[in-house]
């Protein structure tokens, strides 16, 4: 069965004759929406975005229009817009494609958003590893500035705003919005405590600030183009617009695929769109929203009630790919990074790999995350190194429970959810590992098995 993609944001991505310079962008109708936007009342744009129901594409899925509403406009302080292009969630690679192949779409979306919230200045915080993306953006911004799409008195509207591109120095935590702001201000990227430091009131330089994901800001352009109501018709109520799914792992055709929310099921995405698994392999598990999302086991069944009251009874392959359905299944759509694991995957090693990442990336500010996550890494690393104990599964679960919900930022959850879900769903493998090693030890054989763990 063929599933037609709905390419809204990736409309021009991968087109052979499409280049990322401004001439090509304008030729394809670019910056018309900015012209339209600056002719509108800023409040009207905010209303359109609210009506569109667009939810943040960075991970949390919070309605962007609502976020904008929280802006403290009475403080008299300047308002800042920050584009979060840190794209650091393992398994996610959509923002990179937008920046590389269609940077002007992002700039146009940003200027529309900046105008809507009347930002004094806009920033793009791009991860340090995206050096090429940074150069592309700098060039694109220069092109746009020359054509007065940004800078002083944009298109004669009287509104002025510029974009500053700021490169990160390679830290996952800079994707957390308050950590990002700290980093942007030139400090260590230690996330701020909330309350009181909600960015909408006390963000960059203690001024009201909006931080949106690259994809979300691109959506703003399309909302202005088609109107909030038309945008809200894409997908399902509460899950509007398209989403770019970045599929990686044990599939035949990994890559990025854009569909309306709930436009495909997880099974269709894996087996039809991505060409299924390698021959002879069976699906074992899927992480549907970047490595911090809870893992789904292939033979699980999900039953419950959706927000609108309808009952559902799904296998993994039946889950519609949208925000609410994945949440109803106990995981999340997150940043759209779908990681597929087949039956060759050793779940202990997979978790060890994830733990290694989060232990490395913990900023170290607050205790549970700083101490707990490296502890989990040490436990899983030890298990892989041939010293697994049967009680380690429960220990890991307990450590994760002591972290989640008790940290300054959502990193605590991001690092705990994989552990909690891996143990909950694959506990037998963790115990089995210990037993196998014990048996090997009894036989006088080495228990350490070579792994590809980085």
């Amino acid at each position, binding site marked *: 069965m063929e599933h037609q993609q709905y390419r809204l944001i990736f409309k021009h991505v991968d087109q052979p004759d499409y280049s990322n310079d401004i001439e090509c962008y304008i030729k394809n109708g670019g910056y018309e929406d900015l012209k339209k936007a600056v002719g509108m009342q800023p409040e009207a744009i905010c209303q359109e975005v609210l009506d569109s129901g667009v939810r943040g594409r960075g991970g949390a899925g919070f309605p962007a229009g609502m976020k904008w509403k929280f802006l403290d406009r009475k403080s008299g302080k300047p308002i800042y817009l920050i584009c979060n292009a840190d794209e650091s969630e393992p398994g996610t690679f959509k923002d990179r494609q937008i920046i590389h192949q269609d940077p002007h779409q992002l700039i146009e979306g940003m200027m529309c958003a900046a105008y809507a919230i009347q930002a004094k200045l806009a920033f793009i915080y791009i991860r340090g590893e995206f050096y090429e993306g940074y150069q592309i953006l700098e060039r694109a911004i220069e092109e746009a500035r020359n054509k007065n799409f940004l800078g002083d008195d944009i298109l004669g509207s009287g509104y002025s705003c510029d974009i500053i591109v700021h490169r990160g120095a390679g*830290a996952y935590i800079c994707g957390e919005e308050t950590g990002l702001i700290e980093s942007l201000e030139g400090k*260590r990227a*230690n996330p701020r*405590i909330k*309350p*009181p430091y909600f960015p909408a009131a006390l963000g960059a330089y203690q001024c009201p600030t909006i931080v949106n994901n690259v994809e979300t800001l691109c959506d703003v352009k399309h909302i202005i183009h088609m109107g909030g109501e038309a945008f809200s018709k894409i997908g399902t109520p509460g899950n509007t617009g398209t989403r770019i799914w970045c599929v990686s792992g044990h599939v035949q055709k990994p890559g990025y695929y854009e569909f309306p929310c709930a436009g495909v099921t997880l099974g269709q995405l894996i087996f039809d769109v991505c060409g299924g698994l390698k021959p002879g392999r069976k699906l074992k598990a899927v992480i549907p929203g970047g490595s911090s999302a809870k893992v789904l086991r292939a033979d699980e069944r999900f039953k419950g009630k959706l927000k609108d009251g309808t009952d559902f009874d799904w296998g993994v392959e039946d889950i519609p790919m949208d925000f609410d359905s994945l949440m109803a299944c106990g995981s999340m759509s997150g940043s759209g990074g779908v990681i597929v694991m087949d039956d060759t995957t050793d779940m202990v090693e997979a978790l060890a790999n994830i733990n290694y990442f989060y*232990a*490395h*990336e*913990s*900023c*170290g*500010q*607050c*205790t*549970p995350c*700083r*101490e*707990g*996550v*490296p*502890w989990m890494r*040490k*436990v899983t690393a*030890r298990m892989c190194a041939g010293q697994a104990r049967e009680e380690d599964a429960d*220990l890991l679960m307990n450590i994760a429970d*002591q*972290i989640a*919900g*008790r*940290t*300054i930022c959502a990193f605590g959850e991001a690092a705990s959810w994989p552990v909690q879900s891996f143990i909950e769903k694959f506990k037998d493998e963790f115990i089995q590992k210990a037993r196998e090693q014990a048996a090997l030890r009894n036989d006088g054989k080495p228990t350490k098995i070579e792994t590809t763990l980085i």
Partner: protein
Amino acid sequence: MSIPDTVETIAINIDGVDVQVPKGINAIEAAKLHGKEVPHYCYHPKLSIAGNCRMCLIEMGMPMRDRATGDPVMDTNGEQKIGWSPKPTIGCSTNVSPGMHLRTNSTMVKEARNGVTEFLLINHPLDCPICDQAGECRLQEFSADHGRGVSRFIEDKNVKPKRTRLGPRVTLDDERCILCSRCIRFSQEVAKDDVLGFVDRGTYSTLTCYPGKELANNYSLNTVDICPVGALTSTDFRFKMRVWFLKRTNSICTESSVGSNTTVWSREGKIYRITPRQNDATNDTWMTDSGRGLFKETESENRINDYTIDGVSEDMEIVAQTAADLLQQGKVALVGSAHNSVEEQFYLKKISEYASASTNIIAKTGDGDGILLSEDRTPNLRGALLNRLITELPNAAADSIDSQIQSGAIQTLFVVNEDLTSLGISQESLAKVSIIYFGSLANQTSKVATVVIPTLTVFEKSGSLVNQNFILQQFLPAIPGPKGVISDVLMLAKIVEKMTGDTIEPVTLTMIWQELSNTIAEFKSITWQKIGDEQGIQINPRAFLDLPFVESKNLKFDPTAFKEANSTALES
């Protein structure tokens, strides 16, 4: 603890009990007011909120209201439902608001605390047996209260440097550091010397100084005080003494007119360290490093231990009589000191009256740092003024004394702990007069003195001092003075007795304060007992407001505001 009537209070509920707390304080302080401890490491009442230790996690709930109508949501008992936050919240950054409900000891809170405690301990070296902080360590205390007693951690602990020199007085044991950032915030916010910071990430985060700088400011040892664990240690105190052996005595720092409240830690007649004692009117919870070192004076090689006449040890009665005789011969000048206590100055004033002496004090000034070191480097100039020992501010020179010696107007000098030669009076001049030297340290003046009377340091006697804000504060003896040396007040009283022939019995500070409160208007109804009971008594400064005091604005003193506040009080 009671809340003053002037503070606006709100009603909140802590662990099921409705209580009143001051508006705007945080949950830790609110709970503390009602006898509930919310354990915490990174929170410090005098520093900004960091919220990083996560030890003070509590449950917080607010009365529920209907989102649409705004009406209160009631439960079946007709009481407003409480919407509890699903996750625990940190007490340090939760400011109380009307109707707020707090749970400081629920299952969720206990689990959170136990979790944080376990996390803090997994990489902790657990070297309490050799750690200076043992006995006053928050981690040790809370581990006893909230720890599991056994470790589930079988992995290798992180290894970090054990003795990093952060500055001349502070040594860091990195393995013990729990990264609470108190020291960093203190350096930024109070000491205004932003040299500390973390480098590296996650569990490898390390406290360090900015490259090329060191923690050398005059407040560096406060970081040791506020360190909740044994990470920052005083290089001077390190490995010297277990804190539980030390006796604590309330004292006042005599370094400058700020009058920081201090605790002197001593054992068997030896002082080991001085730490600040909280007093929000004088020094918050801080003091200078330089003030902490003043106790070394008690062990000085220059210490005078004997009563002597012409260099020969004599019985103190004879010495007192000789001094009295000299003083009664007339043409006496008294060089008093703003280092003396109010009580000593009271007797100096009597001596000066009975001897018809001219009275001087030598001003001691230096640069102020705008924090807790004021320009006036004496602790009790205001006391001398209140005693009317002097009526004008002293100057730093002794020229008039010198010229009066030359002219023969002075024949006897009563010198309190002052080296006149350092003030430009030559040895030849001093040879022309009889000197009674009253002091603790030997100097060029004491060497040529006829009568030498040893005195005690502030650590060896009791008394009171009046600081820059005219706050009267008490200090008590931490250690005994040199053998056979009686207190300054007793000796001065003895000299007065010998001069007048009256017997003053018994000379106690209580008795002196009865007389002080009767004779000096500003001291009316003050007793020695009361100075101790109340942490400082505000003295009426009106009679002295027009004097050009040298102190400029510092942490707790603003000359303009002080003058304004007290003159308006006069008008009203």
